[in-house]
């Protein structure tokens, strides 16, 4: 900030020395240092982003191979960079003229490419990233307080007024940019979801086509009316519930011991539990498969339950340790003084208090087992023993590629999982960071 002040002063001095036009010039120079309209500040940040988006559009046009549209995007990008380079500084008037010229050229370019392109969603989006920045720049460079600042015509009074205005306008513009950015992120995130819903309600197995152009429930009828889907659901349910139960039975006592006791080997054991999480699954995959094959546990739920409950075990132990750490020790000590045994303390004091935490850990291991793909793929070779992930994936390479049925089944499978996840997101993330991340 200090640097800014001294620069402003020196700029003022040099302005004074260089020209004898008088007060307006000097205050203009001073205003340039002290006051930059929020609009111009915004343009300084936004234009590079707009240029970046036009670069992406350029890549899209290169895929498309449309020559004139490529030129449009390239031209837009170049003009944006030039505009950014010559943005008005509140002193040199020519910059405003140049800036307005560039913005106007971009606007024309945008209008032309809008006429050239089809009126598809993508095209509208692509041109709007040319039209909107140029229109905004043109407006802000021409009109209002920022316009006169660009012309180098702002004096001390208008700078003072502008500073007050900046305080209000700056955050607003920032919020606008933030929402624009987040909406783009949301669009990218939501696209597959919208697509899958569309495919599930479109007749046949059409992958493209307009969104929401036809409606049918045939895929849901086929999937929910058939036997295989329910068979896979049953398998998944057995495996996930079994995993949760076995995993918790193993993890709760261990997590409690790590949380409460310091015993010989406790540090080593905790380190081992953390290290195991980092092991590549693939190194266990082949031996697992061979052991399960030897023991005849392929194509059974038991094999998967054993494998899952052990792979999820380390994280569960760490999660539970984190949760148990949060239960105050004073309660236990009080119970011990009242004559409760150590085992009794665990069952009657700690466990009831940490039931929500146990539930979160249970949900976590349930979701892990419910969504696991690789082990299920390797362990299950017959259609009847598939879990949902393997079953759903098998619908795609099958002859005819049952995209519609797959989409319908996916929606049925995802909804409960997503609802559970969203409802308990905070607790899940808290548990995860207590377990895996902070480690």
């Amino acid at each position, binding site marked *: 900030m200090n640097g800014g002040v001294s620069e402003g002063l020196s700029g003022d001095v040099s302005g004074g020395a260089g020209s004898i036009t008088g007060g307006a010039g000097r205050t203009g120079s001073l205003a340039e240092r002290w006051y930059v309209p929020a609009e111009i500040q915004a343009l300084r940040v936004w234009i590079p982003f707009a240029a970046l988006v036009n670069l992406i559009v350029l890549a899209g046009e290169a895929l498309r191979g449309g020559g004139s549209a490529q030129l449009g995007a390239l031209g837009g990008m170049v003009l944006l960079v030039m505009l950014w380079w010559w943005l008005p500084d509140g002193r040199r008037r020519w910059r405003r003229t140049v800036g307005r010229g560039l913005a106007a050229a971009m606007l024309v370019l945008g209008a032309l490419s809008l006429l050239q392109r089809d009126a598809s969603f993508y095209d509208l989006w692509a041109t709007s990233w040319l039209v909107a920045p140029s229109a905004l720049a043109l407006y802000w460079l021409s009109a209002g307080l920022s316009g006169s600042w660009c012309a180098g015509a702002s004096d001390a009074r208008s700078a003072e007024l502008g500073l007050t205005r900046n305080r209000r306008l700056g955050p607003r513009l920032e919020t606008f940019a933030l929402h624009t950015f987040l909406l783009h992120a949301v669009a990218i995130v939501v696209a597959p979801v919208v697509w899958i819903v569309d495919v599930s309600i479109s007749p046949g197995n059409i992958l493209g086509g307009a969104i929401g152009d036809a409606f049918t429930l045939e895929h849901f009828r086929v999937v929910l009316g058939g036997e295989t889907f329910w068979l896979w659901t049953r398998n998944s349910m057995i495996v996930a519930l079994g995993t949760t139960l076995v995993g918790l039975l193993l993890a709760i006592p261990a997590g409690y011991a790590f949380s409460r006791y310091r015993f010989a080997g406790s540090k080593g054991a905790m380190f081992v539990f953390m290290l195991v999480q980092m092991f590549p699954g693939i190194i266990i995959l082949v031996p697992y498969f061979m052991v399960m094959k030897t023991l005849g546990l392929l194509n059974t739920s038991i094999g998967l339950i054993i494998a899952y409950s052990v792979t999820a075990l380390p994280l569960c132990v760490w999660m539970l340790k984190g949760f148990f750490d949060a239960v105050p020790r004073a309660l236990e000590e009080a119970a011990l003084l009242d004559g409760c045994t150590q085992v009794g303390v665990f069952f009657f004091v700690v466990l009831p208090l940490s039931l929500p935490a146990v539930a979160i850990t249970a949900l976590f291991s349930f979701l892990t087992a419910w969504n696991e793909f690789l082990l299920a793929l390797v362990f299950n070779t017959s259609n009847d023993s598939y879990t949902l992930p393997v079953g759903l994936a098998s619908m795609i390479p099958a002859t005819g590629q049952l995209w519609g049925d797959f989409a319908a089944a996916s929606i049925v499978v995802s909804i409960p999982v997503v609802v559970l996840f*969203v409802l308990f997101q905070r607790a899940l993330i808290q548990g995860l960071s207590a377990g895996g991340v902070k480690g």
Partner: protein
Amino acid sequence: MRSAALASAGVCGTVAVAGRRVARYAGTAGLLLCSAAAGVHAQQVSVDDAAQAYRQIHIDVDYAPDEAIAGFEIRYASQAFETTGDAELHSTVRVADTADLERVPDDAVFERCWSNGLPIHRDGAGNPVVSPDASNWSCALTGMAPGVEQWIAVVTVGADGAPLVDPERLQPVVGRTDVPDERTPPPDTRPVLFALGMVILSAIVLLAFLRWQDARRGRSKSRLAHIYVAPALIALATLTFYPILYGMWLAFTNADQSRLGDEAWIGLANFAAVFASSGLWRVTLFTFVWAVSNVFAHVFLGLVLAVALNRRGLRGRTVYRTILLLPWAIPGYISVLAWNGMLQPDGLANALLGTAIDFFAGAGSARVVVILVNIWLGVPFMMMVLSGALQALPSNMYEAAEIDGVSRWDQFRYLTFPNLKGTLVPVSLLSFIWTFNSFNTIYLLTRGNPYVGFGEPGATDTLITHVFAVAFEYGRYGVAAAWSVLIFLMLIGFSWLYLRRTGAMEAAT
């Protein structure tokens, strides 16, 4: 997938039923031999060598549905024949309305047959029945002597039982099965059970020893601790440490699909095979490119989104956060398959662009696409972790900075980022390891394709998906175990280097 369909469709226009992992190795699925008996009711019979089994020959039959066809007779002989009289009747498949019949599962019958890829319908007597509008069925013909060629013909018969094709001019197909009897001997479970027993025993002994040590030191409070830890530790020992050691041992043996329980020690031959394979450096390089680019994008985008969401007074924060969490909440395999569909030549991405590009066809574009999809999947996790870390930062720090007129960028650069380093280092390592080990995205998008060469990793194969292919598509368990050991060493080496460079050993341990 597509290439498989094309390759087999080229011969006689039939698509053979073959195992579900045939994918890019369609070439090995067996040569299809066809026969078209002269006449209107011609049908095409092909022998599927990929599906052969002990004393079984698998045939696929394709034909044009016709009301005149009342059934099929399968005839076979151990030499060439032309007339029905020279061949024995093996079995029959009846054509009838199947609405009231059941599909009997494969394992419930001796003679297995399928229609539309599902077990065939059977009548009350257990005989196979195919519906009148079907145009194909297939059967595994049992009782075929192994190692000898068999001539097989399928004769369509009318309602009166008379052949609809000329019974004197049959053109049988030749098939043989060379599969040795796999049912004998049943796998010997004793070594595995013995090893598991030993592992459990040593875990118990270790715990007992530690407990004794505690007791000697007079730490009576923790006397229950070892018992609490015992179940988890024993489970971990038997199901994680034992398989890891077993896997390391497998790396030095000739274990493969046909050998189970009688692997022999072959020294470093598997490692030699790994180092001799031409794709080793390419696939290793791609794996690192894949993991590093993913982690960079995850951390960068996660951080940007976390900072954006963390802005004070942001309206709709909960809504944004919930939606942006979706890639994490939706089961991963479903979103990957959805992207697979969207990126098909007739998918949504192309519909939006108005093009018909096959993103998975070229090596370069396929690599970019798998990385982009995985970035989509992984950002929310990073976003949430960093959001949590951001919220834990004291807000008065920023208030002070604001009063001092520190710009937003400088606030991020000098306040936020250094304070996040403690979270970023371990999380990015974890993310690296997860991405390095991830399998679903590549398997469900490309299966490692585009194809490069037989036995070589495909253009988008990472080490992990390649090991999967070596183990479960080629059945070379020993070589796969050797790859696994190398991967393990690579990961340990990388993690160690990373933690040393970032000086975060303490943060991680």
